[in-house]
């Protein structure tokens, strides 16, 4: 174990790994990642890995579009195929009111260069031939949204970071963060102490716990979300199909399996990672409402992961005012994978003192105390 580091990152998921990569790329020599388990153990290895640009606020649209631009060149940049594919996102509307909201969002997205559009039920059926369109008022569609392999993306970032000198310690839980006069001094792990003035909390589902170690009350909580996946089949449809009303998302991923997930409004805060039969049942019923031919397909696996949620379902990006040197990239509320490249790049710029390409001041930790929540209508809860 090293004795000291310029920056210590807690968490080797997609967020921690990509921050490490961008820090090293910015020229930092002593970056360390501490991972309690192993890379991809947490939310990254359990996520749906959809990549969507259809957002309702300018900041989110820009973060997402910037991320897609990075994703496009990422396999080449990192020297590892992350299986990025742009099959689009089809966002179903369930009411005229929702369709109106989508129209406003599409106008915003188009202004920012995102090629989304409103489609009729007939067009939606052309895009997803197995879609049941009865009672569907319409949908929003963006052909450049997509999907990547979350394991490969995480590991690609990690390996590239390691090639640039980043050190990864697996199975090394952080048990303490030393803070003196409001400044970070070091990190204590089960394997020893590392002296550092900069710590990054990229602990995903355990962000509040890591915050406590530095004496910070971070208003994030974790919530179980589940996914199930079917046997592989030849291509049936390209885009991710989602509904903000039911919170459902469903996509056929490159191996041919159909992956689907859905939130549960009654899910209590917890770190529960066990799968439930109730999800299996509810998910099957909901997905058959919109994609009825899937009734012939066998489910082969189900699992659970954690959403790390904030009160406004928007992430916390930046340095804590009360503890200098304590940076955060947490609380992504289920959308961390898709905006990881850009947010991590921005945080790396903030740490090295460079100018970030997009301002994320609105995503500070202190916004909750000030009551300045970010209102984003387009989240999958």
């Amino acid at each position, binding site marked *: 174990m090293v004795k000291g580091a310029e920056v210590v990152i807690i968490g080797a998921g997609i967020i921690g790994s990509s921050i490490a990569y961008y820090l090293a790329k910015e020229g930092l020599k002593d970056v360390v990642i501490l991972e309690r388990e192993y890379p991809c153990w947490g939310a990254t290895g359990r996520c749906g890995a959809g990549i969507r640009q259809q957002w309702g606020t300018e900041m989110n649209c820009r973060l997402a579009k910037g991320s897609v631009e990075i994703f496009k060149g990422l396999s080449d940049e990192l020297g590892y195929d992350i299986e990025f594919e742009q099959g689009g996102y089809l966002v179903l509307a369930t009411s005229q009111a929702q369709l109106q909201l989508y129209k406003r969002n599409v106008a915003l997205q188009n202004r920012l260069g995102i090629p989304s559009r409103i489609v009729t039920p007939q067009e939606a059926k052309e895009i997803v031939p197995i879609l049941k369109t009865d009672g569907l008022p319409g949908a929003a569609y963006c052909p450049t949204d997509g999907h990547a392999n979350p394991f490969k993306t995480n590991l690609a970032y990690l390996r590239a970071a390691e090639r640039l000198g980043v050190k990864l310690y697996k199975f090394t839980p952080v048990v303490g963060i030393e803070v003196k006069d409001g400044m970070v001094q070091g990190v204590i792990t089960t394997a020893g102490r590392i002296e550092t003035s900069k710590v990054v909390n990229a602990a995903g589902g355990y962000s509040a716990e890591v915050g406590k170690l530095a004496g910070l009350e971070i208003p994030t909580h974790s919530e179980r979300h589940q996914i199930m996946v079917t046997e592989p*089949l*030849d291509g049936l449809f390209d885009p991710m199909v989602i509904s903000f009303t039911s919170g459902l998302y469903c996509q056929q991923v490159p191996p041919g399996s159909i992956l689907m997930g859905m939130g549960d409004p009654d899910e209590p805060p917890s770190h529960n990672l066990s799968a439930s039969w109730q999800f299996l049942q509810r998910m099957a019923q909901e997905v058959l409402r919109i994609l009825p031919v899937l009734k*012939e397909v*066998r489910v082969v696996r189900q699992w659970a992961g954690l959403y790390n949620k904030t009160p406004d379902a928007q992430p916390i990006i930046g340095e804590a005012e009360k503890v200098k040197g304590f940076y955060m990239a947490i609380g992504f509320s289920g959308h961390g994978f898709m905006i990881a490249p850009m947010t991590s790049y921005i945080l790396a710029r903030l740490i090295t003192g460079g100018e970030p390409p997009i301002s994320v001041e609105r995503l500070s930790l202190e916004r909750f105390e000030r009551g300045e929540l970010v209102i984003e209508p387009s989240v999958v809860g």
Partner: protein
Amino acid sequence: MRIVQHPILTFARGKKISFTFDGRTLEGYEGEPIAAALHDAGVKVLRRSIRLSRPRGFFCAVGKCSSCLMKVDGKPNVRVCIEPLREGMRVETQRGKGELIERG
């Protein structure tokens, strides 16, 4: 090939029935796994691997290994090592990962 004489066993075979394999009419016994009837007819290659198109056959016989997935009566990914044979079944080599919707 069927075992005709066995020192210990006698085989209680079901009704002799016919089915098709890739359009060819074959015979088998009702209720035995489709794969047994195919093996008897000398059909050893049941599917092709997805990436390298390597031949794959019967392997575990208990529905666990997915080496024998075939299309049966239009339905893809049927494990023929455990699926009972029925009169008139349409058994086909499946292309790729299997099509859920039959295209004309």
